[in-house]
């Protein structure tokens, strides 16, 4: 068994934390784990990509274009930007709540209609799950818990090899004690939104 998750989003959204939660859960299940992260200049509000691979025999920290089993998109435009990481059979989990780039916010560039982004994915892939992770996180208590919503949602997508309870335990272990309740709540809400 081999499984590759490509986690894409914007610096500050918690992409690295999510990859740590999934990676530790995979390690706990006895899988080999190989990951690759973006650090440094790329984190200043730019696009962020984290690759997570686990299975019986993985060693390469990168995956071939197109070979992702799952694209976990923390942001709709970034999901579309990175669509070539997956193939027509990949599972795609896409947060529909955008993070506006500064040039868009300032009115110099346009952000596409969310529907057009969803349709662009649907044209090529029939395993798309969409979620309003940021809205759900706000409902759970705080917008920053959107990554916990996404992790909960991943537990519910088709064929994801790590069980829900293992993922939740890994999440709880990765976050500071005072945020555990919030994260657990956000995780469950994310799971329910997809399951």
């Amino acid at each position, binding site marked *: 068994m081999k499984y590759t998750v490509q986690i894409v989003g914007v610096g500050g959204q918690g992409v690295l934390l999510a990859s740590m939660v999934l990676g530790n859960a995979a390690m706990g299940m006895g899988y080999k784990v190989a990951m690759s992260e973006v650090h440094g200049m790329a984190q200043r509000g730019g696009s962020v990509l984290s690759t997570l691979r686990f299975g019986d025999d993985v060693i390469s920290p990168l995956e071939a274009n197109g070979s992702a089993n799952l694209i976990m998109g923390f942001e709709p435009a970034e999901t579309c930007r990175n669509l070539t990481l997956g193939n027509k059979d990949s599972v795609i989990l896409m947060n529909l709540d955008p993070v506006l780039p500064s040039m868009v916010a300032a009115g*110099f560039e346009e952000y596409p209609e969310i529907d057009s982004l969803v349709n662009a994915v649907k044209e090529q892939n029939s395993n798309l799950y969409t979620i309003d992770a940021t809205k759900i996180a706000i409902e759970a208590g705080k917008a920053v818990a959107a990554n916990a919503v996404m992790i909960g949602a991943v537990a519910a997508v088709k064929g994801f090899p790590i069980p829900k309870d293992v993922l939740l335990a890994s999440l709880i272990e990765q976050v500071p004690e005072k945020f555990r309740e919030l994260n657990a709540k956000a995780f469950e809400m994310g799971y329910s939104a997809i399951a």
Partner: protein
Amino acid sequence: MANLLADEGRQLLLGNEAITRGLIEAGAGFASTYPGTPSSEVGNLLEKISSDAGIYFEFSTNEKVAMEVSAAAASSGVRSFVFMKHVGLNVAADPMMTLAYAGIRGGMLIMSADDPSCHSSQNEQDNRYYSMLALLPMMEPSTPQEAKEMVKEAYRVSEELTLPLIFRTTTRVNHARGVVELGPKATPKTKGHFDKDVARFVNIPAYAKQNRVRLLDLYKKAQELSEASPCNFIEGEGEIGIITSGVSYTYVKEFVSDASILKLGFTNPLPERKIADFIKGKKAIIVVEELEPFLEDQVLRICAQNSLSVPVYGKRTGHLPRQWEFSPDTLAGIRELVKVEEFRQPMKKVEVALPSRPPTLCAGCPHRGMFAAAKKAAGNTDVIYCSDIGCYTLGVQPPFKAADFIICMGGGAGAAGGFAQSTDQKPIAFMGDSTFFHAGIPPMINALFNNHKVVIVVLDNRTTAMTGHQPNPGTGRDFGGVSTEAIDIKKLVEGVGVKFVREINPYDVKGATKVMKEAIEFDGVAVVISKCPCPLELKKQKQLVIRAVDVDQNKCVKCYNCVRTIACPALFKGKEGGISTDPTQCIGCGMCANVCPSGAIEVRQ
């Protein structure tokens, strides 16, 4: 979170965390660096844990000094570790080249973290050639687990040879993460004694001549160690042989079948007999390595010297690229030679036009105010913005476009002097506080000495921000049981005799503009110090005071001066066209209010 001081167990570690753990398991007692991605995390980790680990650690003013302090420690019998990004080794090459002649006593590793694909660098130079140039042994790990183990083996080799060893990594090793089994911790030795030996440690010509011979002898000995090294091993069988190293090995290992792999971890000097034996009887050899044909050219030589007429494929034959980092996809280039796993057909790029999202200066970043002030002050003057290495490199983007020339640390101010002399344009050099101490002082003095009429702007944000907020001489240090006072940049600049020195607050953009006008008109060297702490650093220190900002939509005249000049990501254009602030990003610095001509923006005090 990683616990690098744990006694045992398995952890999911970043390559840089695994390397740091390797230092603890190897008993390293001294470490020094100048921060640079992809090596930076090692410094941030050591800043936190060096006291508890019993290791002395320092952020040195630059890589050259970092090399020198670690060289002295190792010469005194203390295992030392000096680490930097690839271009940092250019700065440190001067001491390294002669240190090789002197050698060391306690083990010394020089980590060069190379950055194929320039993820956060200005070039993608291949530092493996430094090992040949300096005649130093070199090792290269492929994974976090191997990196940790190799640190220990590298110290053993360094001590056996009495030579510093280049520990060469790349971004995909430093920033890869994998399962790492912790080994027993060693007790570090932090104090030694420097036993004088003039013939070794004083390389005047008479001694240097002899030490060159000594070094060549040691290089031969290193070759024997490489032949026997457990870091060089063969896996699998097949008529096709693949010779590989570093992260490329992981791609070959996982995605190529039906080939025999010679994996090289001890990569200078190469195990020439082992390579020749590996090649004998093979139908073909493929060399898989990133960047330059470093291994490949040596393999071709080894073939020639051993009269082996086996074809060697790689970069010289055009099967593999010389530019940019590899990935599993790169292996498509050798599919005609060997069995490579079939990858899935990727989905097509979407046709929807996606907004750009380059890395950008943060909301409330003081550099924004300084760039706005410099641009406004320059007006129609023909200026050349000589920028440097740091967050402010991002000033190249619109609307600032405040970078016309960038080469290296401190290079902006140096070039400014040359432009002042060789053109009629006005050079304005930008550099950060850490860059000022790293390599910015000599070009400033050069401008004074040679009467170059330049403006030097020191963007003093009280930290080394881009690499993850390390302290620098301008902040003083307070970790590892050592506290020192901050060095005052203004006093230093005045002290060398600069006549025009002004300290400004970049949040007061109008005030800064006035000072910049004077600086540009000044007939001589003008130094403007833009002093304002990085909000991210303040946030980390829990000292950031966030003020709310109100925009009076009735007063907003929709001139967009704020977004055009400050371009803060916390500013956005509302549906009606008026400007608003995003409270999740805005820190209330007031730069936008300062440039608003209609007084529509107000910071609540």
